[in-house]
C-alpha cells in the first residue's frame, strides 16, 4: 500500500473530503439553509387550511405586516430590549472582570457568584424572578414596604414589564460575558499599566486609555453575541408575561411563535421571520465588513 499525498488536490482526496463533509452538509442544508430560503418562499403564500391549499398572494403578508400594530410594537420592544440588555450587561461584565482579575478577597467565590446564572435554564430563572416580582409578597415589594413605598405590579403594568424582563436578562447574561473579558485582561501585559502610571496617568485615565482600547476586540465579540441573543432569547416571556400586558413585552420571536403556533397562520409567521432574518443578516454583515476592521490595534 502506498501513502497518498494529503492536504492537496488529488482526486481521491477530493472524494474523501466531500464524503466526510456529506452527513453534516445534509443536515445543515435541511435545517438551516433550506428553512431560511423556504421562509421567503412560504411568506408569499396563504397558510393551507383543511382542504384549502396554499394560494400565491405575492407581497400581501408584507403589506399586512406594515399595517399590523402588534408587529410594530414587537419590533420596537425588541429594539428597546436589545439596547436595554446589551449596554448594561457589557458594562457589568467588564466591571466584574476587572474586579475578579484584581487582588480582591474571595475572588474565586465572587467569580462563582457572577457566573452561576449562566448555567441555569432560562425557564428556571424566570420562575424565580416571577416570585421576586410578585406584588405584595415578592422580594421587591417587601423591600419597598420597608421604606413605606406602595406596591407595584412590576410584570402587570405596561410601564414596568419590559424593564423587569430586561433586568432578568442582564442578570442571566452578564456573568457569561465576564469570562471573555477576564481572558482578555489576562493577556494585557502589566507593564502597559505601569508605564502609564509612571507617566502620571490616573486610574481612570489608565482604564480609558490603556485597558479599554485593548479590550476592544473582546467587546466586539461580546457585542455581536449579545445582539444575536437579544433577538433569540424569549424563553422567559413564556413564564413571566406571555408577551403582556397588552403586548408590552412581546418580542419579535415571541410574536412569531404566537402567530405560527397559536393562531396557526404560518404564512404570516414566515413573513415575520423574514424580518428577523434580515436583522440577523445585518448584524452578520456589520461584523464581517465593518467592525472587524476597526477594532484591531495590534
Amino acid at each position, binding site marked *: 500500500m502506498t*501513502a*497518498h499525498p494529503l*492536504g*492537496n488536490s488529488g482526486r481521491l*482526496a*477530493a*472524494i*474523501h473530503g*466531500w464524503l*466526510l*463533509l456529506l*452527513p*453534516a452538509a445534509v*443536515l*445543515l442544508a435541511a*435545517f*438551516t439553509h433550506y*428553512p*431560511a430560503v423556504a421562509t421567503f418562499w412560504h411568506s408569499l403564500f396563504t397558510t393551507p387550511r383543511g382542504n384549502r391549499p396554499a394560494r400565491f398572494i405575492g407581497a400581501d403578508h408584507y403589506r399586512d405586516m406594515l399595517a399590523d400594530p402588534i408587529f410594530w410594537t414587537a419590533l420596537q420592544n425588541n429594539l428597546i430590549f436589545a439596547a436595554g440588555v446589551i449596554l448594561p450587561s457589557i458594562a457589568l461584565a467588564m466591571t*466584574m472582570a*476587572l474586579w475578579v482579575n*484584581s*487582588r*480582591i478577597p474571595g475572588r474565586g467565590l465572587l*467569580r462563582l*457568584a*457572577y*457566573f*452561576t*446564572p449562566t*448555567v*441555569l*435554564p432560562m425557564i*428556571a430563572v424566570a*420562575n*424565580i424572578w416571577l*416570585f*421576586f416580582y*410578585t406584588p405584595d*409578597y415578592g*422580594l421587591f415589594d417587601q423591600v419597598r414596604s420597608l421604606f413605606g413605598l406602595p406596591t407595584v405590579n412590576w410584570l402587570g403594568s405596561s410601564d414596568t414589564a419590559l424593564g423587569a424582563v430586561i433586568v432578568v436578562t442582564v442578570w442571566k447574561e452578564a*456573568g*457569561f460575558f465576564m*469570562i471573555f473579558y*477576564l*481572558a482578555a485582561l*489576562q493577556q494585557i501585559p*502589566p507593564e502597559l499599566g505601569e508605564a502609564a502610571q509612571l507617566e502620571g496617568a490616573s486610574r481612570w485615565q*489608565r482604564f480609558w486609555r490603556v485597558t479599554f482600547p485593548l479590550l476592544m476586540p473582546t467587546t466586539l465579540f461580546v457585542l455581536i453575541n449579545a445582539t444575536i441573543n437579544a*433577538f*433569540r432569547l424569549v*424563553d422567559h416571556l*413564556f*413564564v413571566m408575561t406571555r408577551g403582556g400586558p397588552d403586548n408590552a413585552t412581546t418580542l419579535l420571536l415571541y410574536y*412569531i411563535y404566537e402567530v405560527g403556533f397559536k393562531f396557526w397562520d*404560518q404564512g404570516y409567521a414566515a413573513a415575520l421571520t423574514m424580518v*428577523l*432574518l434580515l436583522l*440577523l*443578516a445585518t448584524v452578520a454583515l456589520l461584523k464581517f465588513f465593518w467592525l472587524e476592521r476597526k477594532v484591531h490595534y495590534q
Partner: protein
Amino acid sequence: MSESAELSRSLVRSIVSPAPTGMLADGRIDRTLNTIAAWTLGLLWLTPLLYAVWTAFHPSAYSTRFDAFAPLTLENFHAALEAAPFPRYFLNTSILVATILAGQLVLGTLAAYAFARFSFPGRDIAFALVLIQLMIMPDVLVVENYRSIHTLGLVDTIPAMALPYMASAFGIFLLRQTFKTIPNELEEAARIEGCGTLGVLWRVYVPLAKPTYLAYALVSVSHHWNNFLWPLIITNTVETRPITVGLAVFAGTDQGIDWAIITAATLLASGPLLVAFLLFQRQFVQSFLRAGIR
C-alpha cells in the same frame, strides 16, 4: 487552538495564583471601596438563587418571611414529584442531550477533518455556508423547521427535537481549528503505517483533540439541557417533553400559587447542571472560554 489554549491556560494560572497587577487595586481606601462594591454586586447576583434555595427547603408559610429558626423540610420536593412526572422529564432530557451530543461529535469530527486537511473544489464556499449557522441559528427558524418535521411525520418525537441541532457550525469550526494545529507529519506517519482516512482520523486526530471535545461537550450539554422554544413547539406529551418544557407546563397550570413547590421543581430542573457546575467549576469556565474564542 494555540491562542485559545493559551488563554485558557492563563485563566487557570490566574485562578491558581493571584493576578500580577490588578489595574484597579492601588491605594488602601480604593481597594476597600472596590471590595465592598464587588461583594455587594456578588451578593445581589446570588440573591435569587439563595432565595430559591430558602423557599424550596422550608414550609410554604416561610416563603415570604425570613426566620433563622424556620424548620427545614423536603416536603416541597415530594409534592413537586407527586404533582408532575419529573423523573420522566429528566429521562427525556438526558436522551435528548446525549443524542444531540453524539450527533454533533460524529458529524462535527468528520466535517472538521474535511475542512482542516483536505482540499476539494467548493471547500471554501462550503465552509462559508457552514458559518452562516453561527448567525442564523435553528432557534429562529422554528416555523419552517416545524413544517419539515411535520412532513417527515416526526412531530412529538425525540429525534425531531435533536435533528436541527445535530450539525453544529460551532462544533465544526471549533474542531477544525484544533485539527489544524496537529502536525501533518503525524498524519503522514499513520498513512505509511497503513491507516486509511478514517483510521487516521480515529487514531491521530481524535485522541489529540480530547480537550476540545471535553470543552465542546460541556457547552453543548448545558446549552441543550436548558433549551426551550423548539422542544416546546415540537412536543405534546409527557413521553417526549424535556425538563424545561415540563417545568413550564407545571408552573403554568394553576398550582394555587404555592411558591414553595414551584421553586422546589425549579431547583430540581436546574439541579443536575448546577451541581455539576459547582463540582467542576474550573472545567466549566475554561470550556465556555475555549468554546467562545473564535
